[in-house]
């Protein structure tokens, strides 16, 4: 008994030391890097039926169940795709996720609909992917699910666990290029209308050519903890969201796009207002436009596109009229500086007004200061003289 408890103590010490190391490694690697899945303790592998044992039946395409709803549930797992999947390659056994099954016949499983099956089983993911799973608990999908919308996406809707290939680089945690390109198609499974808009946008079209600089869905909406994009907070945050890339010269210089877009927006009436809302009352809606009100959301196009680009005044005027319906002339679009910094060539009137005051203010105030100081000096001198008398 004493020998046994010593062994346990030793084992605990080793486990504790391991956890410390893992924790330290996680701290060093940075909180944002995708953490590798942390599997829970599993029984020794010889106790588990092999994946091929399960595929013996589940590799058959005609393996189905008719559910009480009348739906036909396919129990088929494509063996080829399964073998290519990251789970199989990491030697994850079927029963590591389907933990209540160890052999045939399987324990009873009750589900009325196919969706019901998914919703009963997807929580297995948290056993290894606790980080990602916990993030989803804060997502708009999970909130919709909790509110009774069973269509809301859960883990397995985006990541088919039987076929999912590797998404991130094991060393860096960065998304693999191919995984990045296919993200919009994943979201399209439920958001096909938005996807169809996006894929024709300046960003979406570039993504399909493999351009790594353009945003996919998750660059704006996040991943796992996806937030409701219709809130005032999301709207007020939009300029900073776009600015993440659009103020980065490393990306923008390649395409000759100005990185002054945020500065010039914030300096303008609309941008000042939105920025102050974002700073002071992020949850209060404002009717002043954010980037997406003029540039579009999923249908963002090149500003020089003759049909939709808002560098063309008539196209921008339409956007202005959404909030200023009384406007009829395109010259109104010049009432905002179109992201230009005033210069002798762009908005010269503004430039020369600024120049005028750059000279006038120091001249007037400087002149005043000279006189005031001379007056002070004189009065001090006189007071001293007076005191001597």
């Amino acid at each position, binding site marked *: 008994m004493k020998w046994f408890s010593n062994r346990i103590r030793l084992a605990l010490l080793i486990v504790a030391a391991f956890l410390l190391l893992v924790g330290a490694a996680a701290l060093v690697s940075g909180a944002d890097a995708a953490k590798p899945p942390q599997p829970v303790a599993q029984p020794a592998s010889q106790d588990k039926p092999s994946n091929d044992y399960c595929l013996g039946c589940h590799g058959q395409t005609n393996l189905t169940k008719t559910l009480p709803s009348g739906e036909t549930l396919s129990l088929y797992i494509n063996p080829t795709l399964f073998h290519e999947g990251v789970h199989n390659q990491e030697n994850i056994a079927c029963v590591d996720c389907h933990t209540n099954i160890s052999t045939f016949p399987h324990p009873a499983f009750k589900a009325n609909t196919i969706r019901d099956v998914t919703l009963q089983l997807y929580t297995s993911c948290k056993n290894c992917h606790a980080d990602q799973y916990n993030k989803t608990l804060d997502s708009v999908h999970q909130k919709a699910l909790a509110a009774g919308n069973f269509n809301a996406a859960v883990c397995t809707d985006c990541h088919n666990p039987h076929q999912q290939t590797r998404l991130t680089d094991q060393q860096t945690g960065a998304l693999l290029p191919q995984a990045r390109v296919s993200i919009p198609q994943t979201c399209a499974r439920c958001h096909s*209308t938005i996807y169809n808009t996006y894929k024709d946008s300046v960003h979406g079209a570039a993504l399909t050519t493999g351009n790594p600089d353009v945003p996919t869905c998750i660059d704006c909406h996040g991943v796992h903890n996806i937030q409701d994009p219709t809130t005032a907070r999301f709207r007020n945050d939009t300029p900073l969201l776009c600015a993440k890339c659009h103020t980065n010269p490393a990306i923008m210089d390649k395409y000759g796009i100005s990185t002054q877009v945020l500065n010039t927006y914030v300096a*303008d009436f609309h941008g*000042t207002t939105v*920025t102050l809302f974002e700073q002071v009352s992020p949850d209060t809606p404002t009717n002043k436009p954010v980037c997406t009100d003029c540039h579009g959301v999923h249908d963002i196009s090149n500003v020089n596109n003759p049909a939709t680009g808002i560098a063309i005044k008539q196209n921008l005027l339409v956007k202005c009229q959404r909030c*200023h319906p009384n406007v009829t002339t395109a010259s109104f679009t010049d009432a905002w500086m179109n992201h230009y910094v005033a210069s002798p060539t762009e*908005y010269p009137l*503004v430039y020369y007004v600024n120049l005028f*005051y750059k000279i006038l203010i120091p001249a007037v105030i400087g002149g005043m200061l000279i006189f005031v100081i001379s007056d002070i000096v*004189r009065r001090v001198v006189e007071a001293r003289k007076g005191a001597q008398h």
Partner: protein
Amino acid sequence: MPEKKPAPVQTRTYVRFSFTDRLQHLLMLLSFTTLAITGLVQEYSLSSISISIVRLWGGIENIRTTHHVAATVLMLIAIYHLLNFGYKMFVLRQRMTMLPGIQDIKDAWFAFTYNIGLGKSRPQMGRYTFEEKAEYWALVWGTLIMGITGFMMWNPIATIRFLPGDFIPAAKAAHGAEAVLAVLAIIVWHMYGVHLKRFNKSMWTGRLTEEEMLHEHPLELADIKAGVARPTTEASALRKRQMVYYPVAGVLGAAMLFAVYGFVNGEQTAITTVPPQAPTIAVYVPETPTPLPPTPTPSPTPLPTATATASASTTTIATESATAAANLTWADVGPIFAAKCGQCHSAAVASNGLNLSTYADAMKGAQDGPVIVPNDAANSKLVQIQSAGGHFGQLSTDELAKVEAWINAGALEK
């Protein structure tokens, strides 16, 4: 000045500002300060002080409303000031002591040269010194600029009917810069001139002592003493002028008030604009048809590993079944069992005790008894379970028919 008993020099006072002068000053002080605070936080909106003030004020929209109210107050003061000026000029026919002239430039020069030790004495000045005139006319200039540029920003749509669009951002630039100039001028010039140099209370008390008059407005004091500071008008002439001026001032005042009303209320759409239309996107539009695995039509898929060959022979057997219904042996059904049942009902696994890998084991049955009753397919448990359907290793109809035929033919090994 009524000649009562002459007061001692220190206590004898002279009227400098009337009550309405002082009231104008007070209202302007309040509106100017309010405009400066609520305006500068917009000019420097991202500084932490500005953000704190905006938060204190309850948000930028409140700041703007306050700014607009203060601007309106200032415009009303300006109207009153103009009408009051007209009264003083056309009815009272007072001297225009605020008008700047060459003498003011001379005074300024002499004051400066005296300060730097080049002059013998300070210049002697009248009712309004050059400092006061500079400040007054700076205020007039500033109010004009702020009013015009403020109008452009408040009413951009009306403005661009007459001017190019870039006048709006230019107006904004001028409005902000002029504000900075005005505030700095107040801090440097006004603060020094009437608070620091000598605390001048006359804008509150309305009066200056004789000594103060002597120091600061000696020429005016001289005029007062000479009785020429204010024109004396007969009451009847005064009334006559008033009869002319009041209607004119009434019309002018009404016109100006109407202009201010238009200024303030002309363009509501630019201020309380149409709320942003939330994009009406159908969010949940799943791709159709929802991708499902292939439907379970009988299409034998090659199974992984060892069973692949067995399954291939199943196909052959199934095609032959029609012609060779009789004389079925284990050689005919064994491969079917191996392919469809072998994963579970193998020697290694023998799920539920049933092993279908050899003839002998198959006839032995499951742990609860035989599953094959020779010559009686209907009573064979294997057939019963398979006929019910939904078994994991579900035989196709053809395969099941062949197994049944084999059992009914005696379930022979050879």
